[in-house]
């Protein structure tokens, strides 16, 4: 009792940015943490594990403006489970776009899940430029905001936090172009090919 269970809701959890954010959280948390990755088949074990914890932290990417199906399916299982405990649910959402406010709808989906199912809602952290910030010189900003999130949960002084790269939109666009081109290059794919307008060519 008393610890925090961190659940990674990214469909690519083992190599996800969410995993990086979860590791930062575990480092800064004053409360003991345990980390699990949501898969298609481990919902019963994860739900059972929540019976003994005080806090849950859902760490996940923004997918098509909302919560990814991996997490949606887990929440549906949690809703159906006969869990007696009602841990406080907090969330750390990262999105690819620069603006953390693009995560607002997903944050409110988590709050709605809590309201509909009797779970106390805890803190929310929204990270813009979340695909790239951990490998950038601005990693310290992400780390700082994760620290704030961890502190707010440990002190039970819940709040909403956000961070992103402090770049103009134009500079972010050029930085992201470089980032994606480098990924394409690793696969032998040129800029021209990546810019193809064809779908299912």
């Amino acid at each position: 009792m008393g610890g925090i269970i961190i659940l990674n809701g990214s469909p690519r959890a083992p190599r996800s940015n969410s995993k990086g954010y979860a590791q930062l959280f575990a480092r800064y948390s004053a409360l003991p943490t345990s980390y699990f990755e949501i898969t298609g088949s481990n919902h019963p074990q994860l739900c059972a594990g929540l019976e003994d914890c005080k806090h849950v932290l859902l760490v996940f990417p923004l997918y098509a403006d909302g919560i990814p199906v991996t997490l949606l399916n887990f929440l549906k299982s949690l809703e159906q489970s006969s869990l007696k405990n009602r841990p406080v649910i907090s969330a750390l959402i990262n999105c690819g776009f620069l603006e953390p406010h693009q995560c607002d709808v997903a944050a409110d989906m988590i709050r709605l899940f809590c309201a509909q199912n009797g779970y106390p809602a805890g803190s929310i952290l929204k990270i813009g430029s979340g695909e790239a910030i951990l490998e950038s010189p601005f990693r310290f900003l992400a780390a700082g905001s994760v620290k704030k999130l961890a502190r707010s949960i440990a002190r039970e002084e819940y709040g909403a936090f956000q961070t992103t790269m402090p770049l103009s939109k134009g500079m972010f666009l050029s930085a992201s172009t470089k980032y994606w081109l480098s990924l394409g290059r690793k696969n032998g794919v040129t800029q021209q090919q990546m810019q193809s307008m064809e779908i299912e060519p």
Partner: protein
Amino acid sequence: MKLILTDCPLDSCLSLPGDVTWMDLSALQIRNCVGCFGCWTKTPGRCVIRDDAVKVYPLIAQSDKLLYVSRVKYGGYDTIMKTMLERAIPVQQAFLRILDGETHHVQRAVAPKQATILAYGPTSPEEQALFRRLVDRNARNMSFESWRVVFCPEEQVDARVKEEVDAWAES
């Protein structure tokens, strides 16, 4: 091109005008997006998972009138529709542009759309407001030139779909 995507079989879609294409996603095999970004950096415009989703996203891209029929869950699309929407990112490029003062992806050959979302199942006013905010955000990423959300109970879905299709025929 006019497209209807539903997350359940519907009688109202069994006899549609010839210019309307209907896909019942619940009858297709569509796996989860695995977040590999292969459709942007490996085989641009093509998903690396070769299941039924690859038949659907080209239709989404071509359509200029679109009707999505989905159950609502936690203020968003339920699993079947959401799985397909996540699998539709090959229609975008990796590269970003600025739209309405925000960063968004450049689209490939995607027609601008008039979208109607028929959202069914029990919903509170709060859930409906959240769902509308979701569709408003989708609009920027999914080329909705205009959009409308219609909420209805499950038993009225067929009748509402018919109304929408009739309205398309008259417009």
